[in-house]
């Protein structure tokens, strides 16, 4: 194991997979010479050449369309849409093409493509570069959606995503760019649909993903000083969801708090809450709580943005309201 940053893990995983499989290529804006906005593809152009690291025009529809066509022909594209906000301009290619082609063509094709995109507020990028839109992509049968919270998870999930025979949205978080953690050296694959208990506890289950996992862990530490032992589950993969892990934990604790950075209304937390209410009603010892952003666009002013983003205090308060 070696310590690496989140960005290093992204870069090295892509590199390793491109070395392993010649059908893997990267296409997107700024991925070549520039090495991407946060350096996720730095050095790859030099390593693999223009044929496999393709700087594209600012044409999101054509980028995803290119990936769909190439994937249908057996290649394994990694498509970079740097900010998830931009996915809005290529939604047809994601929703109606990538996600549906296999089904619509009666199973004649596989569409093994990865879309790498980042979510998240916290750097003053305002409402069109800060959203957490993961829930959109959980409403698309045919698409898988995963989010990594640590460098190790980056490696395991991105490797799995590239090797998966389906369209996968791999969600990064911009505030985690410099986050460091131990990363396994050898081949490391995290199967989708396996949640990770990042902290074991017995009194309350906190479910989260992406950067919020770290805020949940910090909140759990504070809560433990007050005698509340919280279990923090990082679902890691939204679709498919590890329902069993969540239900097992709620069975143990009887209490569920779901934390996400996206706005609360119709966020993915609603899906998890509904699932638990449906399949785990008798396990519940308290109402299910969601801690999420208010139903507003992400504000720019650092003061407002700080207020907007879910913080430790909000998580702690939500947990305490159940006791």
């Amino acid at each position: 194991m070696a310590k690496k940053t989140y960005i290093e893990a992204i870069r090295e995983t892509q590199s390793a997979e491109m070395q392993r499989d010649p059908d893997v290529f990267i296409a997107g804006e700024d991925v070549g010479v520039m090495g991407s906005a946060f350096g996720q593809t730095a050095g790859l152009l030099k390593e693999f050449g223009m044929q496999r690291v393709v700087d594209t025009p600012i044409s999101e529809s054509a980028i995803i369309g290119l990936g769909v066509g190439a994937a249908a022909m057996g290649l394994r594209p990694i498509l970079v849409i740097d900010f998830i906000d931009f996915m809005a301009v290529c939604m047809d290619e994601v929703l109606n093409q990538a996600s549906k082609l296999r089904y619509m063509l009666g199973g004649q094709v596989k569409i093994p493509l990865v879309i790498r995109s980042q979510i998240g507020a916290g750097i003053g990028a305002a409402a069109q570069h800060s959203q957490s839109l993961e829930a959109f992509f959980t409403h698309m049968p045919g698409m898988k959606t995963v989010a990594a919270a640590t460098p190790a998870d980056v490696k395991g999930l991105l490797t799995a995503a590239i090797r998966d025979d389906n369209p996968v949205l791999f969600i990064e978080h911009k505030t985690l760019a410099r986050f460091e953690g131990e990363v396994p050296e050898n081949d490391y694959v995290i199967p989708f649909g396996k949640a990770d208990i990042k902290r074991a506890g017995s009194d309350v289950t906190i479910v989260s993903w992406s950067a919020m996992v770290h805020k949940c862990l910090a909140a759990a530490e504070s809560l433990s000083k007050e005698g509340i032992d919280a279990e923090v589950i990082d679902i890691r993969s939204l679709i498919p969801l590890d329902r069993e892990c969540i239900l097992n934990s709620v069975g143990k604790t009887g209490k569920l708090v779901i934390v996400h950075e996206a706005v609360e209304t119709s966020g993915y937390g609603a899906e998890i809450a509904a699932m638990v209410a449906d399949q785990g009603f008798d396990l519940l010892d308290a109402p299910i709580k969601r801690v999420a952003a208010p139903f507003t666009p992400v504000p720019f002013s650092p003061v407002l943005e700080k207020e907007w983003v879910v913080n430790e205090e909000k998580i702690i308060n939500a947990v305490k309201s159940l006791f």
Partner: protein
Amino acid sequence: MNLTKDQMLNLYETMVKIREFEEKAKELMLGGKLAGFLHLYCGEEAIAAGVCANLNDKDCITSTHRGHGHIIAKGGDINRMMAELHGKATGYCKGKSGSMHIADLDIGIVGANGIVGAGLPIAVGVAFALRYKKMDNVVVAFFGDGASNRGTFHEALNMASVLNLPVVFICENNHFGMSTPQSVHQKIKDISVRGTAYDIPGKTVDGNDVLAVHEAAAEAIGRARKGGGPSLIECKTWRHYGHFIGDPEPYKDPEEQKKWLATDPIPRFAKYLIESNYAIQADLDAIKNSVREKIEAAVRYAQSSPDPLPEDIYSDVYAG
């Protein structure tokens, strides 16, 4: 390029096959045998036939919501097509998609598409893959005048241009984007001029003249095959029917319709074949009769095929 007699008669047969398939589909639709939407290709047969005659099985196409003609011209199995129209388990897509989404990856049909303009970026991706694999094959992206106003048209042409990919963009200008006449939906008359914006050769041909289409396509496809990059060919044609079956066509000028029907590509080519001594009427009648039999057989195949099972809802959402 001089075509042999067989090639000529093959072109004719393809066109007749498309026409007869579409007329049969219309009859089935009106008879309540088919569900969903049906967009007929009648009147545009010369384009699919003329273009696809230049393609081999490893070459690819992407098609549109008005796609039956392309599938047939590319060699699609009319039994499986007809079964798909009927929503049967033996259909090309196991009954999951119907008329608008037929594909046959084994012979390079990457799929018709229900979203106008969606096929173009996919065609670019297919071309990318072909070149990536160092194959000398090409991709043809069919689309209409309506799609030429979509962002995907512009993004795809530009992307194919800058990546110098083997794509031939075939614009079937039937003069209507759904119900909207071309003069209302764009100022230009010749869509081929849009190639200029992307430094792609653009050419306009008479889309109801199968030989003219064939010749233009042969040139563009040959260029792409040799690494010469993409081309744009606009084929001017006319949609005999409405946008879909049931469309009352209040937007069509009867005079204009009459004028275009007089240039119907099939009788026109038949006349040429007879006058140029490639065939006598009896040869052409024989082709038509044989095609009709095949189509009747396809209907029988479709209608005697099993329906999908309820549990098939869940199959093929994900691979693996």
